[in-house]
């Protein structure tokens, strides 16, 4: 029997390095077409050894596609990749790994039922007697790899028992442990706290000193300016500009990314004093405790907190996804007694969850089916769904929200993140809610779509409705909220009015 054999040793590749003068990676003129979209047109990027090259652009700009071509996940249509002076052509991620390119993926790819060590060394397990896994050796190596990021976990621990931040750190440790010449980091800090980001930045500096080239993809421009030597901007699959980070600034990059001046937060609503939602001493054991607030008609209430503060948990309890252990919720003057989300929905509440792929959308279904699924009952005749009626409301909603798609029959999985989010939004708007709860509504979507969602929020509450906006993006919360409820470790740290709220004031409460 033959086994697929991994890279059995953690090879050091200093010896294979070209002279310092050259590029470690030279990517020229890459084009890639997917059915219906030109994902990349003539994109180039050069990485010098011992430097960090940042790649920025809106979602859908083609960053991840370019990286997937680099590691041999997708095949390119045109273009040439030169690694350490040699033209390469990868068909499989394994070839890229063997040649010295490792990647931290944007979407966490842990295998939950395997241990940390097994995840770290998947595909290149240390062996004894040639055939068997050397578990003690592997666990020791895992300890070392994690120590690089000041991560002290038991290598035997199953991956699924870790927090999201810990999983991301393990992924990072894994990519680093290949001792690759090129490390691609695709949104490596999306789940990390400040201290962990510091550890990551420290390791990146060590890698630079070792001569590793790093491609750093991030939406967080602060990080780009902190760590990157050069930056390349992509927009709609085109190469827009490459330059040393010293020659540009935040506003300059944003202008290149969106090709126009960045818009602020379109906030036009004025809150009334009529209560819409009154929450008193709401508690759910182990998640959050004694949360009280009143949301007025026409108001956007921001809920801010760092990871683990209990924002999502609060929204889930309000929407009856989970049940509060004590406290009361009064909605539109009536005590809310919903026990299931379907009942909350009938009470004209809506919740747009944090993870649209896992809990929002039915990916293999069409835009039309996804939008209409919650309100099919309103378009039936004698028990049969009226395709005409559904088609009409979906078309008009798609127009209102400016969903960009080929047709309402297009499958949702082929839309960009921003358009997917609009589909989820459209579904809930069709239920005609008077309270909309949004959990990280703009996570991972591009700046253009963000602005549209912000504009929509203002219009929505102006009709005497209310929004609870939970977000860990401070500018968004500050920009859109009339008041901000700050949570910290499951408790209410305070409520700030729009006038009181500043980045500092909110962070003071949150940390």
């Amino acid at each position: 029997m033959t086994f697929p054999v991994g890279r059995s040793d953690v090879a050091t590749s200093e010896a294979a390095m070209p002279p310092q003068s050259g590029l470690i990676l030279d990517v020229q003129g890459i084009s890639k077409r997917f059915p219906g979209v030109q994902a990349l047109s003539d994109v180039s990027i050069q990485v010098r050894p011992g430097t960090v090259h940042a790649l920025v652009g809106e979602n859908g700009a083609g960053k991840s596609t370019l990286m997937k071509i680099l590691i041999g996940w997708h095949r390119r249509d045109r273009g040439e990749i030169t690694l350490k002076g040699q033209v390469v052509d990868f068909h499989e991620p394994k070839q890229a790994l063997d040649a010295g390119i490792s990647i931290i993926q944007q979407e966490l790819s842990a295998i939950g039922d395997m241990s940390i060590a097994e995840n770290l060394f998947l595909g290149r397990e240390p062996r004894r007697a040639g055939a068997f896994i050397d578990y003690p050796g592997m666990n020791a190596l895992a300890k070392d790899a994690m120590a690089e990021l000041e991560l002290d976990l038991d290598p035997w621990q199953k991956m699924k028992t870790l927090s999201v931040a810990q999983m991301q750190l393990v992924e990072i440790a894994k990519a680093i442990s290949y001792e690759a010449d090129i490390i691609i980091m695709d949104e490596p800090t999306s789940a990390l706290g400040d201290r962990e980001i510091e550890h990551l930045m420290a390791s990146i500096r060590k890698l630079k000193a070792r001569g590793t080239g790093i491609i750093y993809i991030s939406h967080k421009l602060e990080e780009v300016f902190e760590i990157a030597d050069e930056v390349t901007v992509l927009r709609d699959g085109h190469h827009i500009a490459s330059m040393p980070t010293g020659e540009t600034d935040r506003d300059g990059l944003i202008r290149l990314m969106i090709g126009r001046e960045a818009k602020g937060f379109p906030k036009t609503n004025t809150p009334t004093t009529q209560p819409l939602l009154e929450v008193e001493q709401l508690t759910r054991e182990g998640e959050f405790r004694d949360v009280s607030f009143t949301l007025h008609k026409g108001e956007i209430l921001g809920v801010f907190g760092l990871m683990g503060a209990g924002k999502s948990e609060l929204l889930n309890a309000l929407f009856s996804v989970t049940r509060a252990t004590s406290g009361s919720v009064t909605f539109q003057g009536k005590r809310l007694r919903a026990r299931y989300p379907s009942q909350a929905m009938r009470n004209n509440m809506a919740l747009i969850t944090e993870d649209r792929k896992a809990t929002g959308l039915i990916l293999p279904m069409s835009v039309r089916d996804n939008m209409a699924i919650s309100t099919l009952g309103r378009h039936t005749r004698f028990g049969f769904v009226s395709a005409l009626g559904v088609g009409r409301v979906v078309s008009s909603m798609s127009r209102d929200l400016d969903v960009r798609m080929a047709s309402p029959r297009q499958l949702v999985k082929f839309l960009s993140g921003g358009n997917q989010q609009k589909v989820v939004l459209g579904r809930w708007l069709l239920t005609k809610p008077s309270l909309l709860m949004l959990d990280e509504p703009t996570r991972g979507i591009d700046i253009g779509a963000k602005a549209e969602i912000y504009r929509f929020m203002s219009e929505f509450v102006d009709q005497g409705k209310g929004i609870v906006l939970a977000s860990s993006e401070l500018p968004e919360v500050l920009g859109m909220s009339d008041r901000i409820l700050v949570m910290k470790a499951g408790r209410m740290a305070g409520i700030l009015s729009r006038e009181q709220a500043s980045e500092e004031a909110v962070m003071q409460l949150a940390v």
Partner: protein
Amino acid sequence: MKQARSLRIRIFLVENGIILAFILLVVALTFSSEFFLTGPNIRNVLRQASINGLLAIGMTFVILTAGIDLSVGSVLAFGGMIAAIFASSSLGEQYPLYVALPMGLAAGAMLGMVNGSLVAFFRVPPFVVTLGMLSIARGLTLISSDGMPVSRLSPEYIYVGQGMVAGIPVPVLIFFGVLGLAWLLLYQTPFGRYVYAVGGNEEAARISGVNTRMVKFTVYAISGCLAALGGIILSARTTAGLPQAGVAYELDAIAAVVIGGTSLAGGQGRLFGTLIGVLIIAVVNNGLDLLGVSAYYQLTFKGAIIVAAVLLDSMRQR
């Protein structure tokens, strides 16, 4: 210290509820039938369990990769038939065991490889591929034997199904030998980890440099090969290659894996659980026989056990 131990015991019980259920079953049957816990009966139960056990081991590999193999019953018949044809003196030359046995195994492995290539390289859903193979392999069995039983097998061949070594039936020895090898493969070699990885997160496994297609291909080949081994044992025990052998055997094999706590979604499960699942099915069949329950009730009862086991598991997950 004492608290920590009682907690550990509780965790053990929750994790191993199925073992507890098995023990309770054995105790209950011991009290309700005087024959149950006797040497000959235990031997009998294990012998009956061994064929389903071989199928279930292969099935565990396949299900761990989030696949399914519905063809094992038919592949069992085909492998057994091919081996029997070589071991029989009624159809031309009679070959020795060391020819007949590898021929049968190779026949099963080949059909498994066909399954594996279609699943791994052509991305046809495993359910469809192996459903097709269920029919194809049965057809091939009928073609190769002309629809007739193949008997007059060599004594050494029959020994594989009926022989005893130190009071232990040969099929039982084979089953536990294969179980040991499977354990080594699954838990001590990289390949075994890749089986879990492919079922747990195929994309992540591939990005980590795992040859995911090869892993999928191999598990179906293993399943086919073990099904053929089961078929050889069955033909040896019944002293004939039977064209209708193994009909609906895939159901018991899948049931054993599922009762043992392996998730049909892949990536999660244990070989030890499969062993317990196999024993539970064998003990239930045997126990109901001993208690004189009619075959009709036996089927109903077995189905209820499968559903109950999965129910227990899904309640634990929550």
